[in-house]
Protein backbone atom coordinates (compact mmCIF):
# COMPACT_ATOMS: atom_id res chain seq x y z
CA UNK A 1 0.00 0.00 0.00
CA UNK A 2 2.73 2.47 0.98
CA UNK A 3 4.82 1.76 -2.10
CA UNK A 4 1.78 2.36 -4.32
CA UNK A 5 1.12 5.67 -2.57
CA UNK A 6 4.74 6.69 -2.97
CA UNK A 7 4.57 6.04 -6.71
CA UNK A 8 1.31 7.96 -7.03
CA UNK A 9 2.70 10.92 -5.09
CA UNK A 10 5.83 10.95 -7.22
CA UNK A 11 3.77 10.87 -10.39
CA UNK A 12 1.48 13.66 -9.17
CA UNK A 13 4.41 15.92 -8.29
CA UNK A 14 6.20 15.15 -11.56
CA UNK A 15 3.09 15.73 -13.66
CA UNK A 16 2.30 18.89 -11.72
CA UNK A 17 5.74 20.39 -12.22
CA UNK A 18 5.74 19.41 -15.90
CA UNK A 19 2.37 21.09 -16.42
CA UNK A 20 3.50 24.26 -14.60
CA UNK A 21 6.47 24.54 -16.91
CA UNK A 22 4.21 24.54 -20.01
CA UNK A 23 3.29 27.86 -21.55
CA UNK A 24 -0.46 27.49 -21.62
CA UNK A 25 -2.46 29.11 -18.83
CA UNK A 26 -4.93 26.23 -18.51
CA UNK A 27 -2.11 23.72 -18.15
CA UNK A 28 -0.63 25.94 -15.47
CA UNK A 29 -3.82 25.65 -13.42
CA UNK A 30 -3.96 21.88 -13.98
CA UNK A 31 -0.36 21.65 -12.81
CA UNK A 32 -1.14 23.55 -9.62
CA UNK A 33 -4.15 21.32 -8.93
CA UNK A 34 -2.04 18.18 -9.41
CA UNK A 35 0.70 19.52 -7.13
CA UNK A 36 -1.86 20.32 -4.44
CA UNK A 37 -3.28 16.81 -4.64
CA UNK A 38 0.23 15.38 -4.42
CA UNK A 39 0.89 17.35 -1.24
CA UNK A 40 -2.39 16.12 0.27
CA UNK A 41 -1.51 12.51 -0.51
CA UNK A 42 1.91 13.08 1.05
CA UNK A 43 0.30 14.19 4.32
CA UNK A 44 -1.89 11.08 4.17
CA UNK A 45 1.14 8.83 3.64
CA UNK A 46 3.37 10.46 6.23
CA UNK A 47 0.62 10.31 8.85
CA UNK A 48 1.26 6.52 8.69
CA UNK A 49 -1.28 4.38 6.89
CA UNK A 50 -2.95 2.05 9.41
CA UNK A 51 -5.61 -0.32 8.11
CA UNK A 52 -8.74 -1.27 9.98
CA UNK A 53 -8.04 0.37 13.33
CA UNK A 54 -10.23 3.43 13.68
CA UNK A 55 -9.33 5.69 16.60
CA UNK A 56 -12.57 4.97 18.47
CA UNK A 57 -12.59 4.00 22.13
CA UNK A 58 -14.99 1.10 22.69
CA UNK A 59 -17.82 1.39 25.26
CA UNK A 60 -16.07 -0.96 27.71
CA UNK A 61 -12.59 0.52 27.47
CA UNK A 62 -11.02 3.62 28.96
CA UNK A 63 -8.12 4.17 26.54
CA UNK A 64 -7.03 2.98 23.12
CA UNK A 65 -5.05 -0.14 23.91
CA UNK A 66 -4.33 -1.28 20.36
CA UNK A 67 -2.52 0.65 17.65
CA UNK A 68 -4.86 3.04 15.86
CA UNK A 69 -5.01 5.25 12.77
CA UNK A 70 -3.99 8.86 13.35
CA UNK A 71 -7.07 11.02 12.70
CA UNK A 72 -5.12 14.27 12.47
CA UNK A 73 -3.80 13.93 8.88
CA UNK A 74 -7.37 13.64 7.64
CA UNK A 75 -8.27 16.88 9.38
CA UNK A 76 -5.22 18.52 7.84
CA UNK A 77 -6.06 17.20 4.38
CA UNK A 78 -9.68 18.32 4.69
CA UNK A 79 -8.49 21.82 5.60
CA UNK A 80 -6.03 21.84 2.71
CA UNK A 81 -8.70 20.60 0.28
CA UNK A 82 -11.16 23.29 1.33
CA UNK A 83 -8.49 25.96 0.95
CA UNK A 84 -7.41 24.70 -2.46
CA UNK A 85 -11.07 24.54 -3.53
CA UNK A 86 -11.34 28.27 -2.97
CA UNK A 87 -7.97 29.09 -4.48
CA UNK A 88 -8.58 27.02 -7.59
CA UNK A 89 -12.00 28.51 -8.17
CA UNK A 90 -10.34 31.91 -7.99
CA UNK A 91 -7.47 30.90 -10.25
CA UNK A 92 -9.83 29.56 -12.93
CA UNK A 93 -11.84 32.78 -12.99
CA UNK A 94 -8.61 34.77 -13.07
CA UNK A 95 -7.33 32.82 -16.07
CA UNK A 96 -10.61 33.36 -17.86
CA UNK A 97 -10.53 37.10 -17.16
CA UNK A 98 -6.92 37.30 -18.24
CA UNK A 99 -7.70 35.46 -21.46
CA UNK A 100 -10.53 37.88 -22.19
CA UNK A 101 -8.41 40.97 -21.58
CA UNK A 102 -5.01 39.89 -22.88
CA UNK A 103 -6.47 37.73 -25.71
CA UNK A 104 -3.83 35.03 -25.42
CA UNK A 105 -3.24 32.05 -23.20
CA UNK A 106 0.48 31.91 -23.96
CA UNK A 107 2.52 32.90 -20.92
CA UNK A 108 5.39 34.03 -23.15
CA UNK A 109 3.22 36.74 -24.64
CA UNK A 110 2.26 38.24 -21.30
CA UNK A 111 4.87 40.98 -21.19
CA UNK A 112 2.82 44.00 -20.21
CA UNK A 113 4.36 43.98 -16.72
CA UNK A 114 7.87 44.32 -18.13
CA UNK A 115 7.11 47.29 -20.37
CA UNK A 116 9.11 50.38 -19.69
CA UNK A 117 7.27 53.60 -19.03
Amino acid at each position, binding site marked *: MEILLVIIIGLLYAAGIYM*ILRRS*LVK*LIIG*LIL*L*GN*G*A*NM*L*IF*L*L*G*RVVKGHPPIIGPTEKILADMYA*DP*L*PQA*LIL*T*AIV*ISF*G*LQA*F*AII*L*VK*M*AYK*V*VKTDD*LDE*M*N*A*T*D*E*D*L
Partner: protein
Amino acid sequence: MSNPYIVLPIIFQLFLAILLMFCWTQKNLQKLVSTVGSLIAVAIAVIMFAQVWKSGTLVTQAGNWGAPFGITFVADTFSVLMVLLTTLSGLAVSVFSVGAVRNARVKFGYFPILHFLIMGLCGAFLAGDIFNLYVWFEIIIISSFVLITIGGEKAQLEGSIKYVTMNLLASVVFLTAIAVLYGLTGSLNMADLSLKVAEIENRGLVNVTAILFLVGFGIKSAVFPLYFWLPASYHTPPPAISAIFGGLLTKVGIYALLRVFTLIFIPDAFMITLISIMAALTILSGGIGAMIQNNIRKIFSYLIICHIGFMLAGLGMYTELAILGTVFYLVHDIIVKTNLFMVSGLIFKIKGTYSLRLLGGFYKDYPKLSLLMAIPLFSLVGIPPLSGFWAKFYLIRGGLEVDNLVLVGFIILGSFLTLFIIARFWSEAFWKTGEELPKKLKVKYYHELKPLKQKAMVVSILFLAFISLGIGLGAEYVIQVASRVAEELMNPQSYIEAVLGKL
Protein backbone atom coordinates in the same frame (compact mmCIF):
# COMPACT_ATOMS: atom_id res chain seq x y z
CA MET B 1 0.99 32.84 31.25
CA SER B 2 -2.44 32.08 29.95
CA ASN B 3 -4.63 34.86 28.66
CA PRO B 4 -7.71 34.02 26.56
CA TYR B 5 -7.94 37.49 25.03
CA ILE B 6 -4.74 37.49 22.96
CA VAL B 7 -6.66 36.44 19.83
CA LEU B 8 -8.59 39.71 20.05
CA PRO B 9 -6.58 41.48 17.28
CA ILE B 10 -7.58 38.67 14.88
CA ILE B 11 -11.21 38.52 15.97
CA PHE B 12 -11.55 42.27 15.87
CA GLN B 13 -10.37 42.44 12.26
CA LEU B 14 -12.80 39.64 11.36
CA PHE B 15 -15.55 41.56 13.11
CA LEU B 16 -14.64 44.69 11.13
CA ALA B 17 -14.67 42.74 7.87
CA ILE B 18 -18.12 41.33 8.64
CA LEU B 19 -19.40 44.78 9.57
CA LEU B 20 -18.02 46.14 6.28
CA MET B 21 -19.66 43.32 4.33
CA PHE B 22 -23.01 44.32 5.77
CA CYS B 23 -22.58 47.85 4.44
CA TRP B 24 -21.43 46.61 1.03
CA THR B 25 -23.23 49.34 -0.92
CA GLN B 26 -22.59 52.36 1.32
CA LYS B 27 -19.18 53.58 0.23
CA ASN B 28 -18.80 56.45 2.68
CA LEU B 29 -19.94 54.39 5.63
CA GLN B 30 -17.35 51.74 4.72
CA LYS B 31 -14.58 54.33 4.73
CA LEU B 32 -15.68 55.61 8.13
CA VAL B 33 -15.97 52.12 9.67
CA SER B 34 -12.60 51.07 8.27
CA THR B 35 -10.79 54.15 9.61
CA VAL B 36 -12.38 54.11 13.07
CA GLY B 37 -11.96 50.33 13.30
CA SER B 38 -8.28 50.53 12.38
CA LEU B 39 -7.80 53.12 15.11
CA ILE B 40 -9.38 50.79 17.66
CA ALA B 41 -7.22 47.94 16.35
CA VAL B 42 -4.10 50.03 17.01
CA ALA B 43 -5.34 50.67 20.53
CA ILE B 44 -5.88 46.95 21.11
CA ALA B 45 -2.40 46.17 19.78
CA VAL B 46 -0.82 48.82 22.04
CA ILE B 47 -2.59 47.44 25.10
CA MET B 48 -1.48 43.92 24.22
CA PHE B 49 2.08 45.06 23.66
CA ALA B 50 2.12 46.71 27.08
CA GLN B 51 0.76 43.55 28.70
CA VAL B 52 3.33 41.28 27.08
CA TRP B 53 6.11 43.74 27.89
CA LYS B 54 5.04 43.71 31.52
CA SER B 55 4.22 40.07 32.15
CA GLY B 56 6.09 38.06 29.50
CA THR B 57 4.84 35.63 26.87
CA LEU B 58 1.07 35.11 26.86
CA VAL B 59 -0.56 31.92 25.57
CA THR B 60 -4.07 30.74 24.82
CA GLN B 61 -5.23 27.28 23.77
CA ALA B 62 -8.09 27.55 21.28
CA GLY B 63 -10.99 25.36 22.34
CA ASN B 64 -9.27 24.70 25.66
CA TRP B 65 -7.46 21.63 24.29
CA GLY B 66 -4.12 21.17 26.09
CA ALA B 67 -0.85 22.28 24.57
CA PRO B 68 0.72 19.93 22.05
CA PHE B 69 -2.68 18.66 20.82
CA GLY B 70 -4.82 21.75 20.38
CA ILE B 71 -4.17 24.90 18.41
CA THR B 72 -2.02 27.29 20.40
CA PHE B 73 -1.81 31.04 20.02
CA VAL B 74 1.32 32.61 21.44
CA ALA B 75 1.97 36.30 21.98
CA ASP B 76 5.62 36.83 22.74
CA THR B 77 7.36 40.17 22.31
CA PHE B 78 8.15 39.51 18.64
CA SER B 79 4.54 38.58 17.82
CA VAL B 80 2.98 41.57 19.52
CA LEU B 81 5.58 43.88 17.99
CA MET B 82 4.64 42.61 14.54
CA VAL B 83 0.91 42.88 15.32
CA LEU B 84 1.46 46.47 16.45
CA LEU B 85 3.35 47.34 13.25
CA THR B 86 0.69 45.62 11.14
CA THR B 87 -2.13 47.59 12.72
CA LEU B 88 -0.14 50.83 12.39
CA SER B 89 0.47 50.43 8.69
CA GLY B 90 -3.06 49.04 8.34
CA LEU B 91 -4.38 52.29 9.80
CA ALA B 92 -2.23 54.36 7.45
CA VAL B 93 -3.33 52.36 4.39
CA SER B 94 -6.95 52.50 5.45
CA VAL B 95 -6.82 56.29 5.72
CA PHE B 96 -4.86 56.54 2.47
CA SER B 97 -7.46 54.38 0.73
CA VAL B 98 -10.16 56.89 1.63
CA GLY B 99 -8.46 59.29 -0.76
CA ALA B 100 -6.75 57.05 -3.25
CA VAL B 101 -9.03 54.11 -4.01
CA ARG B 102 -11.59 54.62 -6.71
CA ASN B 103 -15.24 54.08 -5.87
CA ALA B 104 -15.52 51.32 -8.46
CA ARG B 105 -13.03 49.29 -6.44
CA VAL B 106 -14.80 50.04 -3.17
CA LYS B 107 -17.94 48.63 -4.76
CA PHE B 108 -16.15 45.32 -5.33
CA GLY B 109 -15.47 44.95 -1.63
CA TYR B 110 -12.05 46.55 -1.29
CA PHE B 111 -12.39 47.41 2.40
CA PRO B 112 -13.68 44.05 3.74
CA ILE B 113 -10.90 42.23 1.89
CA LEU B 114 -8.31 44.67 3.24
CA HIS B 115 -9.40 43.80 6.76
CA PHE B 116 -9.40 40.09 5.97
CA LEU B 117 -5.81 40.56 4.84
CA ILE B 118 -4.87 42.32 8.08
CA MET B 119 -6.67 39.58 10.02
CA GLY B 120 -4.55 36.98 8.23
CA LEU B 121 -1.38 38.90 9.03
CA CYS B 122 -2.25 39.20 12.73
CA GLY B 123 -3.11 35.51 12.79
CA ALA B 124 0.17 34.50 11.20
CA PHE B 125 2.08 36.51 13.79
CA LEU B 126 0.17 35.02 16.71
CA ALA B 127 0.01 31.39 15.55
CA GLY B 128 1.87 28.89 17.70
CA ASP B 129 1.11 25.92 15.49
CA ILE B 130 2.80 25.29 12.17
CA PHE B 131 -0.32 24.10 10.34
CA ASN B 132 -2.23 27.05 11.73
CA LEU B 133 0.51 29.25 10.31
CA TYR B 134 -0.16 27.62 6.92
CA VAL B 135 -3.87 28.40 7.19
CA TRP B 136 -3.15 32.05 8.02
CA PHE B 137 -0.76 32.21 5.08
CA GLU B 138 -3.56 30.96 2.83
CA ILE B 139 -5.93 33.59 4.20
CA ILE B 140 -3.31 36.23 3.49
CA ILE B 141 -2.69 35.08 -0.07
CA ILE B 142 -6.33 34.63 -1.00
CA SER B 143 -7.18 38.14 0.18
CA SER B 144 -4.10 39.49 -1.55
CA PHE B 145 -5.21 37.73 -4.76
CA VAL B 146 -8.52 39.55 -4.63
CA LEU B 147 -6.85 42.88 -3.83
CA ILE B 148 -4.29 42.55 -6.62
CA THR B 149 -6.93 41.72 -9.25
CA ILE B 150 -9.66 44.18 -8.20
CA GLY B 151 -10.15 46.51 -11.14
CA GLY B 152 -9.03 44.05 -13.80
CA GLU B 153 -6.73 46.15 -15.98
CA LYS B 154 -4.45 44.40 -18.46
CA ALA B 155 -1.13 44.80 -16.65
CA GLN B 156 -2.85 44.06 -13.38
CA LEU B 157 -4.21 40.73 -14.59
CA GLU B 158 -0.88 39.68 -16.07
CA GLY B 159 0.94 40.64 -12.90
CA SER B 160 -1.57 38.79 -10.78
CA ILE B 161 -1.18 35.61 -12.83
CA LYS B 162 2.51 35.60 -11.98
CA TYR B 163 1.78 36.50 -8.38
CA VAL B 164 -0.92 33.84 -7.99
CA THR B 165 1.18 31.10 -9.55
CA MET B 166 4.26 31.69 -7.44
CA ASN B 167 2.27 32.04 -4.24
CA LEU B 168 0.29 28.88 -4.88
CA LEU B 169 3.57 27.09 -5.57
CA ALA B 170 5.01 28.43 -2.33
CA SER B 171 1.98 27.14 -0.42
CA VAL B 172 2.39 23.69 -1.95
CA VAL B 173 6.07 23.63 -0.96
CA PHE B 174 5.16 24.82 2.54
CA LEU B 175 2.46 22.13 2.81
CA THR B 176 4.93 19.48 1.65
CA ALA B 177 7.39 20.65 4.29
CA ILE B 178 4.69 20.40 6.96
CA ALA B 179 3.83 16.87 5.78
CA VAL B 180 7.46 15.75 6.03
CA LEU B 181 7.85 17.42 9.41
CA TYR B 182 4.69 15.74 10.70
CA GLY B 183 5.99 12.41 9.42
CA LEU B 184 9.28 12.96 11.26
CA THR B 185 7.93 14.12 14.59
CA GLY B 186 4.19 13.47 14.79
CA SER B 187 3.57 16.97 16.10
CA LEU B 188 2.56 20.36 14.75
CA ASN B 189 2.90 22.58 17.81
CA MET B 190 5.96 24.78 17.29
CA ALA B 191 7.17 24.59 20.90
CA ASP B 192 6.75 20.81 20.90
CA LEU B 193 8.47 20.58 17.50
CA SER B 194 11.41 22.51 18.91
CA LEU B 195 11.99 19.75 21.46
CA LYS B 196 11.25 16.85 19.12
CA VAL B 197 13.32 18.02 16.14
CA ALA B 198 16.35 18.43 18.40
CA GLU B 199 16.13 14.72 19.29
CA ILE B 200 16.07 13.36 15.73
CA GLU B 201 19.25 11.47 14.88
CA ASN B 202 19.04 11.68 11.10
CA ARG B 203 20.18 15.29 10.62
CA GLY B 204 20.18 14.94 6.83
CA LEU B 205 16.41 14.52 6.79
CA VAL B 206 16.00 17.46 9.15
CA ASN B 207 18.11 19.63 6.86
CA VAL B 208 16.06 18.63 3.82
CA THR B 209 12.89 19.61 5.67
CA ALA B 210 14.50 22.87 6.73
CA ILE B 211 15.38 23.63 3.11
CA LEU B 212 11.78 22.95 2.06
CA PHE B 213 10.70 25.56 4.61
CA LEU B 214 13.43 27.89 3.36
CA VAL B 215 12.14 27.57 -0.21
CA GLY B 216 8.49 27.99 0.79
CA PHE B 217 9.09 31.07 2.91
CA GLY B 218 11.79 32.22 0.50
CA ILE B 219 9.29 32.53 -2.35
CA LYS B 220 6.95 34.50 -0.08
CA SER B 221 9.64 36.84 1.17
CA ALA B 222 11.26 37.19 -2.30
CA VAL B 223 14.85 36.11 -1.63
CA PHE B 224 17.44 35.70 -4.33
CA PRO B 225 16.62 32.94 -6.77
CA LEU B 226 12.88 33.05 -5.99
CA TYR B 227 11.96 36.75 -6.22
CA PHE B 228 11.00 37.18 -9.87
CA TRP B 229 7.27 37.37 -9.21
CA LEU B 230 7.65 40.47 -7.05
CA PRO B 231 8.89 43.08 -9.55
CA ALA B 232 6.44 41.60 -12.09
CA SER B 233 3.40 42.23 -9.95
CA TYR B 234 3.85 44.81 -7.19
CA HIS B 235 3.70 47.81 -9.50
CA THR B 236 0.40 46.79 -11.12
CA PRO B 237 -2.33 47.27 -8.45
CA PRO B 238 -3.46 50.68 -7.13
CA PRO B 239 -0.89 52.33 -4.82
CA ALA B 240 -2.85 51.76 -1.62
CA ILE B 241 -2.73 48.02 -2.25
CA SER B 242 0.94 48.10 -3.26
CA ALA B 243 1.58 49.89 0.02
CA ILE B 244 0.19 47.16 2.21
CA PHE B 245 1.80 44.46 0.04
CA GLY B 246 5.20 46.11 -0.01
CA GLY B 247 5.08 46.92 3.67
CA LEU B 248 3.84 43.67 5.09
CA LEU B 249 3.50 40.64 2.82
CA THR B 250 7.18 39.91 2.24
CA LYS B 251 7.84 40.65 5.90
CA VAL B 252 5.55 37.78 6.94
CA GLY B 253 7.93 35.49 5.09
CA ILE B 254 10.87 36.97 7.02
CA TYR B 255 8.94 36.63 10.27
CA ALA B 256 8.25 32.97 9.52
CA LEU B 257 11.89 32.35 8.59
CA LEU B 258 13.08 33.96 11.82
CA ARG B 259 10.57 31.99 13.86
CA VAL B 260 11.22 28.63 12.22
CA PHE B 261 15.00 28.93 12.11
CA THR B 262 15.37 30.03 15.71
CA LEU B 263 12.74 27.78 17.29
CA ILE B 264 12.45 24.57 15.26
CA PHE B 265 15.53 24.18 13.07
CA ILE B 266 18.66 25.49 14.72
CA PRO B 267 20.79 26.04 11.60
CA ASP B 268 24.10 24.20 11.34
CA ALA B 269 27.17 25.53 9.51
CA PHE B 270 25.81 24.44 6.12
CA MET B 271 22.44 26.17 6.57
CA ILE B 272 24.12 29.34 7.82
CA THR B 273 26.38 29.44 4.76
CA LEU B 274 23.40 28.82 2.48
CA ILE B 275 21.35 31.60 4.07
CA SER B 276 24.34 33.98 3.96
CA ILE B 277 24.93 33.35 0.26
CA MET B 278 21.23 33.85 -0.49
CA ALA B 279 21.25 37.07 1.53
CA ALA B 280 24.30 38.47 -0.27
CA LEU B 281 22.91 37.68 -3.71
CA THR B 282 19.49 39.07 -2.76
CA ILE B 283 21.07 42.39 -1.78
CA LEU B 284 23.09 42.49 -4.98
CA SER B 285 20.33 41.53 -7.42
CA GLY B 286 17.75 43.77 -5.77
CA GLY B 287 20.11 46.76 -5.77
CA ILE B 288 21.25 46.32 -9.34
CA GLY B 289 17.69 45.65 -10.51
CA ALA B 290 16.51 48.91 -9.00
CA MET B 291 19.24 50.92 -10.71
CA ILE B 292 18.02 50.34 -14.25
CA GLN B 293 14.29 50.84 -13.72
CA ASN B 294 12.34 53.92 -14.72
CA ASN B 295 8.97 53.13 -13.19
CA ILE B 296 9.17 54.47 -9.64
CA ARG B 297 7.05 51.67 -8.26
CA LYS B 298 9.35 49.11 -9.90
CA ILE B 299 12.31 50.84 -8.28
CA PHE B 300 10.65 50.45 -4.90
CA SER B 301 9.80 46.82 -5.70
CA TYR B 302 13.44 46.03 -6.37
CA LEU B 303 14.41 47.94 -3.23
CA ILE B 304 12.10 45.65 -1.25
CA ILE B 305 14.13 42.71 -2.52
CA CYS B 306 17.41 44.45 -1.74
CA HIS B 307 16.35 45.13 1.84
CA ILE B 308 14.90 41.66 2.36
CA GLY B 309 18.54 40.67 1.80
CA PHE B 310 19.60 42.78 4.80
CA MET B 311 17.14 41.00 7.06
CA LEU B 312 18.15 37.61 5.76
CA ALA B 313 21.78 38.59 6.34
CA GLY B 314 21.00 39.09 10.02
CA LEU B 315 19.62 35.56 10.15
CA GLY B 316 22.69 34.33 8.26
CA MET B 317 25.04 35.78 10.90
CA TYR B 318 22.96 34.13 13.62
CA THR B 319 24.07 36.00 16.71
CA GLU B 320 21.92 37.86 19.17
CA LEU B 321 23.31 41.18 18.00
CA ALA B 322 22.61 40.42 14.34
CA ILE B 323 19.06 39.25 15.11
CA LEU B 324 18.61 42.52 17.02
CA GLY B 325 19.64 44.32 13.83
CA THR B 326 17.20 42.25 11.77
CA VAL B 327 14.31 42.99 14.09
CA PHE B 328 15.16 46.69 14.12
CA TYR B 329 15.35 46.61 10.33
CA LEU B 330 11.97 44.86 10.20
CA VAL B 331 10.40 47.61 12.32
CA HIS B 332 11.94 50.34 10.18
CA ASP B 333 11.26 48.63 6.86
CA ILE B 334 7.54 47.91 7.41
CA ILE B 335 6.83 51.56 8.17
CA VAL B 336 9.08 53.01 5.46
CA LYS B 337 8.09 50.68 2.61
CA THR B 338 4.39 51.19 3.28
CA ASN B 339 5.03 54.90 3.24
CA LEU B 340 7.11 54.83 0.04
CA PHE B 341 4.39 53.13 -1.98
CA MET B 342 1.89 55.66 -0.65
CA VAL B 343 4.31 58.42 -1.69
CA SER B 344 4.48 56.94 -5.17
CA GLY B 345 0.67 56.94 -5.23
CA LEU B 346 0.54 60.60 -4.27
CA ILE B 347 3.13 61.49 -6.93
CA PHE B 348 1.00 59.67 -9.49
CA LYS B 349 -2.14 61.50 -8.40
CA ILE B 350 -0.38 64.84 -8.79
CA LYS B 351 1.62 64.23 -11.95
CA GLY B 352 -0.27 61.41 -13.65
CA THR B 353 2.76 59.23 -14.32
CA TYR B 354 5.11 56.81 -12.61
CA SER B 355 7.93 57.32 -15.09
CA LEU B 356 11.13 58.86 -13.79
CA ARG B 357 11.91 60.24 -17.26
CA LEU B 358 8.72 62.30 -17.37
CA LEU B 359 8.64 63.36 -13.72
CA GLY B 360 10.45 66.46 -12.57
CA GLY B 361 10.15 69.82 -10.91
CA PHE B 362 8.29 68.42 -7.95
CA TYR B 363 10.32 70.39 -5.42
CA LYS B 364 9.63 73.70 -7.13
CA ASP B 365 5.89 73.11 -7.33
CA TYR B 366 5.31 71.40 -3.98
CA PRO B 367 8.17 72.23 -1.57
CA LYS B 368 6.32 71.20 1.60
CA LEU B 369 5.17 67.86 0.20
CA SER B 370 8.66 67.21 -1.10
CA LEU B 371 10.17 67.72 2.32
CA LEU B 372 7.58 65.34 3.75
CA MET B 373 8.44 62.75 1.12
CA ALA B 374 12.12 63.20 1.87
CA ILE B 375 11.65 61.65 5.32
CA PRO B 376 10.77 58.10 4.16
CA LEU B 377 13.18 58.31 1.23
CA PHE B 378 16.16 59.25 3.35
CA SER B 379 15.14 56.94 6.20
CA LEU B 380 15.42 54.16 3.66
CA VAL B 381 18.97 55.15 2.83
CA GLY B 382 19.80 55.28 6.51
CA ILE B 383 21.14 58.78 6.90
CA PRO B 384 21.65 59.27 10.63
CA PRO B 385 19.62 60.03 12.73
CA LEU B 386 16.83 58.56 10.59
CA SER B 387 15.59 55.05 11.27
CA GLY B 388 17.51 53.00 8.70
CA PHE B 389 20.87 54.03 10.13
CA TRP B 390 20.54 52.25 13.47
CA ALA B 391 19.29 49.02 11.90
CA LYS B 392 22.26 48.82 9.55
CA PHE B 393 24.61 49.83 12.34
CA TYR B 394 23.57 46.82 14.41
CA LEU B 395 23.63 44.47 11.42
CA ILE B 396 27.19 45.51 10.61
CA ARG B 397 28.25 45.21 14.24
CA GLY B 398 26.70 41.74 14.31
CA GLY B 399 28.65 40.82 11.19
CA LEU B 400 31.93 42.07 12.63
CA GLU B 401 31.26 40.08 15.78
CA VAL B 402 31.30 36.79 13.85
CA ASP B 403 33.99 38.01 11.42
CA ASN B 404 31.65 37.56 8.46
CA LEU B 405 33.31 40.35 6.51
CA VAL B 406 31.90 39.30 3.14
CA LEU B 407 28.35 39.75 4.35
CA VAL B 408 29.28 43.07 6.00
CA GLY B 409 30.74 44.13 2.67
CA PHE B 410 27.53 43.26 0.89
CA ILE B 411 25.46 45.18 3.44
CA ILE B 412 27.62 48.26 2.90
CA LEU B 413 27.41 47.77 -0.85
CA GLY B 414 23.63 47.45 -0.57
CA SER B 415 23.49 50.69 1.41
CA PHE B 416 25.53 52.48 -1.24
CA LEU B 417 23.32 51.12 -4.00
CA THR B 418 20.26 52.34 -2.08
CA LEU B 419 21.88 55.74 -1.60
CA PHE B 420 22.65 55.95 -5.31
CA ILE B 421 19.12 54.93 -6.30
CA ILE B 422 17.42 57.34 -3.92
CA ALA B 423 19.77 60.17 -4.94
CA ARG B 424 18.94 59.50 -8.59
CA PHE B 425 15.25 59.35 -7.73
CA TRP B 426 15.45 62.63 -5.83
CA SER B 427 17.32 64.51 -8.52
CA GLU B 428 15.19 63.15 -11.36
CA ALA B 429 11.76 63.50 -9.78
CA PHE B 430 12.25 66.49 -7.49
CA TRP B 431 15.10 68.67 -8.75
CA LYS B 432 15.11 68.20 -12.52
CA THR B 433 13.16 70.95 -14.30
CA GLY B 434 9.83 69.45 -15.07
CA GLU B 435 7.86 69.90 -18.24
CA GLU B 436 4.10 70.22 -18.52
CA LEU B 437 2.71 66.73 -18.97
CA PRO B 438 -0.25 66.04 -21.25
CA LYS B 439 -3.49 65.47 -19.35
CA LYS B 440 -4.66 61.90 -19.12
CA LEU B 441 -8.42 61.48 -19.32
CA LYS B 442 -8.60 58.34 -17.21
CA VAL B 443 -6.67 59.71 -14.24
CA LYS B 444 -8.40 61.76 -11.60
CA TYR B 445 -5.79 64.29 -10.59
CA TYR B 446 -4.99 65.41 -7.06
CA HIS B 447 -6.32 68.95 -7.44
CA GLU B 448 -9.61 67.61 -8.77
CA LEU B 449 -10.23 65.56 -5.64
CA LYS B 450 -12.32 66.72 -2.72
CA PRO B 451 -10.31 68.39 0.10
CA LEU B 452 -11.13 65.51 2.46
CA LYS B 453 -9.57 63.00 0.09
CA GLN B 454 -6.50 65.18 -0.40
CA LYS B 455 -6.07 65.48 3.35
CA ALA B 456 -6.53 61.72 3.86
CA MET B 457 -3.64 60.97 1.54
CA VAL B 458 -1.27 63.55 3.00
CA VAL B 459 -2.19 62.77 6.62
CA SER B 460 -1.45 59.06 6.24
CA ILE B 461 1.96 59.79 4.74
CA LEU B 462 2.59 62.32 7.51
CA PHE B 463 1.57 59.77 10.15
CA LEU B 464 4.03 57.13 8.95
CA ALA B 465 6.75 59.75 8.43
CA PHE B 466 6.35 60.76 12.07
CA ILE B 467 6.65 57.13 13.12
CA SER B 468 9.87 56.73 11.11
CA LEU B 469 11.22 59.92 12.69
CA GLY B 470 10.20 58.53 16.06
CA ILE B 471 12.01 55.26 15.37
CA GLY B 472 15.14 57.16 14.39
CA LEU B 473 15.15 59.68 17.23
CA GLY B 474 13.85 57.30 19.89
CA ALA B 475 16.13 54.51 18.73
CA GLU B 476 17.06 53.79 22.33
CA TYR B 477 13.56 52.44 23.08
CA VAL B 478 13.32 50.48 19.84
CA ILE B 479 16.69 48.90 20.63
CA GLN B 480 15.37 47.87 24.03
CA VAL B 481 12.40 46.16 22.38
CA ALA B 482 14.52 44.61 19.63
CA SER B 483 17.13 43.32 22.07
CA ARG B 484 14.42 41.67 24.14
CA VAL B 485 12.99 40.10 20.98
CA ALA B 486 16.44 38.89 19.93
CA GLU B 487 17.09 37.47 23.38
CA GLU B 488 13.77 35.61 23.35
CA LEU B 489 14.39 34.29 19.86
CA MET B 490 17.88 33.04 20.58
CA ASN B 491 16.83 31.44 23.88
CA PRO B 492 13.54 29.74 22.99
CA GLN B 493 13.32 28.11 26.42
CA SER B 494 10.91 30.72 27.75
CA TYR B 495 8.68 30.34 24.66
CA ILE B 496 8.58 26.55 25.08
CA GLU B 497 7.88 26.80 28.79
CA ALA B 498 5.10 29.32 28.23
CA VAL B 499 3.37 26.94 25.78
CA LEU B 500 3.99 23.54 27.32
CA GLY B 501 4.24 24.51 30.97
CA LYS B 502 7.30 24.01 33.17
CA LEU B 503 9.31 21.02 31.99
